[in-house]
């Protein structure tokens, strides 16, 4: 490689890494704010955070493009923001604003904007795998190429029939689907030894006939490289790709959960690292950013989050008296109490 090209490639890597870091940071700052709103009693229902999983999620969000399909799961704030969700819309859903995409009809992580390819998860794990595959199938029927669909699950979801059916079907159809498995060691409180019996979940990829990738989910540079490669391969027509990342959930299942069941040994092990700290080290060591620049980015993220929360918290809440209590789109076929 010529010196000029090597330098160009390094610039690109630096740019990509900084973009990922920005989303990681914005996600972290927003989630810290949501946690504090929850503790202050301002959020009804659950708050589910992605602390520790930001590198993986942001890597995926930045690998996807406008026009792709993305069905995140509960610890994907970073990926959601990178895929174009605004801080305001994320906050609106948590606070129940009538002006948010879910309008108080659904909350917290059960949000999306499906009209632009950002699907809204249901709580039934694994269910989004086949839905994203269906979206990709539709795109293919319409003759669109170069589209990728991605969905995230945890190791717990890999135990569901939906996960199996969805990935198998996508593999049969050779759809450009990327499945990211965040193996965060606990499905709520259940440890991996009670969840699966294979040596490593990435072995399962072979059973579906799809390429499997294994990464350290606490290492942002590994996440960026591998996830972007998997997405590029799917985009190039190489069929479904499965990425398994080992990491640790650095929070409870939700903010209601003190996760006292979590092993201390895991917390102090390498997968217990905070990927945001690792990113900061990697960026400063590479000379891609100074600590002062990274601090300034945090201040900027905090200002953005404060502004969005200040707006969302003043917005109108759903009103049962003016709510449109009609579950179907075809109003002439509605029946029951709403008529």
């Amino acid at each position, binding site marked *: 490689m010529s010196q000029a090209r090597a330098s160009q490639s390094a610039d690109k890597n630096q740019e990509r890494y900084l973009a990922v870091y920005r989303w990681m940071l914005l996600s972290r700052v927003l989630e810290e704010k949501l946690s504090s709103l929850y503790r202050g009693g301002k959020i009804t229902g659950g708050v589910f955070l992605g602390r520790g999983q930001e590198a993986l999620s942001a890597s995926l969000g930045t690998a996807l493009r406008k026009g792709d399909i993305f069905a995140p799961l509960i610890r994907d704030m970073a990926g959601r923001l990178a895929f174009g969700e605004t801080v305001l819309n994320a906050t609106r859903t948590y606070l129940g604003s009538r002006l948010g995409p879910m309008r108080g009809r659904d909350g917290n992580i059960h949000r999306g904007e499906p009209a632009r390819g950002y699907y809204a998860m249901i709580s*039934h794990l694994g269910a989004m795998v086949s839905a994203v595959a269906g979206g990709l199938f539709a795109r293919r029927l319409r003759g669109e190429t170069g589209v990728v669909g991605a969905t995230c699950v945890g190791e717990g979801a890999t135990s569901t029939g939906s996960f199996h059916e969805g990935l198998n079907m996508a593999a049969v159809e050779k759809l450009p689907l990327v499945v990211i498995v965040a193996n965060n060691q606990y499905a709520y409180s259940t440890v991996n030894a009670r969840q699966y019996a294979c040596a490593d979940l990435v072995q399962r990829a072979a059973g579906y006939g799809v390429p499997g990738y294994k990464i350290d989910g606490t290492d942002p540079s590994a996440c960026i490289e591998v996830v972007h490669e998997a997405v590029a391969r799917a985009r190039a027509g190489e069929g479904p790709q499965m990425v398994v990342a080992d990491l640790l959930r650095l929070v409870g299942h939700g903010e209601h959960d003190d996760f006292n069941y979590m092993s201390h040994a895991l917390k102090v092990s390498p997968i217990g690292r905070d990927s945001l700290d690792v990113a900061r080290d990697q960026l400063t060591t590479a000379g891609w950013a100074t600590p002062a620049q990274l601090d300034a980015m945090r201040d900027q993220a905090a200002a953005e989050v404060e502004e969005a929360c200040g707006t969302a918290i003043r917005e109108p809440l759903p009103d049962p008296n003016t709510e449109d209590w009609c579950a179907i789109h075809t109003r002439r076929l509605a029946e029951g109490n709403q008529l």
Partner: protein
Amino acid sequence: MFQNQPTTRASAAITYLEAIRAAQHKLLTDDPRVFIYGQDIADFGGAFKATKGLAKEFPGRVLDSPISEDAQVGMAIGAAIEGMRPIIEMQFADFSTCGYTQIVQHAATLHWRTGVPCPIVIRLPSGGTAGAGPFHSQSMEALYAHYPGIVVMTPATVEDAYTMLLEAVEIDDPVIFCEHKYLYYHLKADALPTVALPTGKARVARPGRDATIATYSAMVHESLACAAELAKEGWEIEVIDLRSVKPLDTDTILASVSRTGRLLAVGEAFPWGGVTAEIVARVATEGFDLLDAPPMRLNAKDTPVPYHPNLWGTHRPTATSIIAAMRRLLKA
């Protein structure tokens, strides 16, 4: 009511099953958004041949799925979000329980939650036939009708099988299309209709003044046989074909009961809850004063659907058991 306008020679009788195939053929021809996904439906043409020849005529749009009902429905939901009009064939209604999560949790909630409609049609070959047994005979309509966000169609005639399937694909919501396997070959019409009653309107299948039978799907024909038999004794039994169970045309049922004063609700499904219970509850709460006798229900027995014809013939309502119930109602 629909009018028969022959589109083919009158001598060429069309079965209920052929009407379903013809509707799918028309949908695939007219609407590029339509595709069909199900088990054994492509080159094989489906377990009942409802898609016979369609894969060849519409390449890439009639596809075999793995044995994965959950993924079949999930796939349809994603495709619908992207603007397609998928039709999912369940090989038997009974197997739709394997796709239940995607149907009632995902498809049914999508529009309410996100504002994006979910126009999918799921065809359920429903109901009992001799020898089919516990897992190939069930009537699932009530399970789906229970959930907000779903339309449930239960066509009883060749004409409705055709026009309601066409309408199902037009509807911007998930539609469960309960097509009755017993009617597949038993029912014939001279021609396919070009005009139809809209979904949500029940049909007076036989007018009468002494009692009302409110029913749907294959039980319409057992009820008509009951009415014909009792007519020999001078009784005039009105038979209402509900056509869809959700929406349920309560107005037409109440109007009938206001004329007859007596109600028997007949269904092939299990007795606990369900469509007949809903009918009786609505008439009791909205039309109690119209009744001259306590309303009655007749359903299948509260056991799995039996295999042997000797048992199956008694497990589900038939003209004979409907006549017996009706005699009790007329005396009440």
